[in-house]
């Protein structure tokens, strides 16, 4: 196990990465729109709780993805009041919110594609586990435009044998 972790190849950060991070901060500090991060965050939290909780359906997840995309657009129109470089927790919350949007998209797109129920992913429209089609890890990648591509990786079962959960 530990040796596997040691073997993970980490990508070396480039100047380009640093520039992107700096651009993200500059955008938040200088953008002069009329949305507040708090307002958008409240909407995202409510939407994800209602539509992408443990119990979800294809329909509710489509509502969620539409909302996440809408919020992505509206995020371009934010303004924060605190412009200072000292303990700027408003900037911090805005950066965090941008990432929350990305991760919400990962969660929802993966859930839409997984047409089965497994653990805390309970699709009310596909109530049983489907090992034939979904005994695999979801890998999700986001491109520059914010579109998500899904890929899958085989599960190493090791000592575990496959059997239905009957408890």
């Amino acid at each position, binding site marked *: 196990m530990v040796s596997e972790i040691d073997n993970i190849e980490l990508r070396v950060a480039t100047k380009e990465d640093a520039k992107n991070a700096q651009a993200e901060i500059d955008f938040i500090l200088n953008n002069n729109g009329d949305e507040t991060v*708090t307002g958008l965050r409240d909407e995202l939290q409510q939407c994800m709780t209602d539509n992408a909780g443990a119990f979800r359906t294809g329909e509710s997840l489509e509502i969620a993805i539409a909302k996440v995309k809408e919020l992505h657009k509206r995020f371009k129109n934010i303004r924060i009041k*605190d412009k*200072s*470089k*000292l*303990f700027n*927790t408003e900037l911090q919350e805005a950066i965090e919110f941008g990432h929350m949007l990305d991760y919400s998209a990962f969660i929802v797109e993966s859930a839409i594609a997984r047409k089965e129920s497994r653990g805390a992913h309970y699709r009310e429209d596909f109530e049983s586990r489907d090992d034939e089609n979904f005994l695999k890890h979801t890998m999700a990648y986001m491109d520059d435009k914010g579109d998500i591509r899904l890929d899958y990786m085989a599960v190493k079962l090791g000592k575990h044998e496959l059997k239905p959960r009957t408890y």
Partner: protein
Amino acid sequence: MSTHNINTQKVNFKVFRFNADVDYLPYYEDYTMEVTSEEVVLDILNRIKWDLDGSFSYRRSCRHGICGACAIKLNGRATLACKENMNDMIKLFGNDITLEPLSIKRAVKDMIIDKADFWQKHDAVKPYLISDIDEYPEHEHLVSPKQAEELDDADLCIQCGACHYACPVVEINDEFFGPAAFAKAYRFEADVRDEAGTERLTEMHKEAQGVWDCVKCFECAEACPKDINPIGKITKLHLMLFDKGLATSTVASRHAVGFKNSIAKHGMLDEGTLVLYSEGPSIIKHIPVALQMFRKGKIVLPWNMPKSDNLDEIQKLVKSSSTAKF
């Protein structure tokens, strides 16, 4: 079925504002809000930031009274924001509430202070177990429940700094370790696994920084949101110093012994002789104060010193309760 009523009431908040980057002087901002009986002080800080002014700044993390980040002052009282219920605060102080950082002179931005001195002192008392640890032990190091009790809850400290910035000695003496650092030092001194010997304890004895400069005002005990009672730990460190023979004769340790001698002799405090005992010949510098105290009747001339009733019982008590050798 029991019903739980949620009520709301109007509260006027006066909030300390300051940004060390741009403001020359701090100022206060007023916010009037409807406060529900379910809210804690941290909810108010959040609502100011999220609904009224995004630039308002404070520290928070756990919202569960365990990370120590959110300590502030509410109407001058040290308050762990996520622990105190607003209703209780309104009962204590009424509907006009002032929110300030723990230490105004250390303010960096609104409620956020520079806690560097707090952490420096924390580090200075060697806040870790000093022990020669066997890297491949064959069995666990047993600590009995009774031995664990010796810590006297000192291990529950969350480093919030409330006691430190409530301490009047910290305010005037830069070297003083302060109540939180003492509680931390005690936490390891009282640990049976600690083998620091005299290494940590000698630091506690040194003048200016050590336990003897505590004026026993109990502010730290009052301020602590976790009921650590730092002054209680300071007293235990005093006793440890005497027990281990580290309390060399200084003004401070003589002062402590002088207290005991005075009580043993008179059953009450003879302040004049006490100062003479503590300070020796340098008492001369206190003559102006002594004359004032004499005029007010705070001290009497040695031959006029009264004796307490039941002096023999007091003397027996002193004898039976003295565990330390002087």
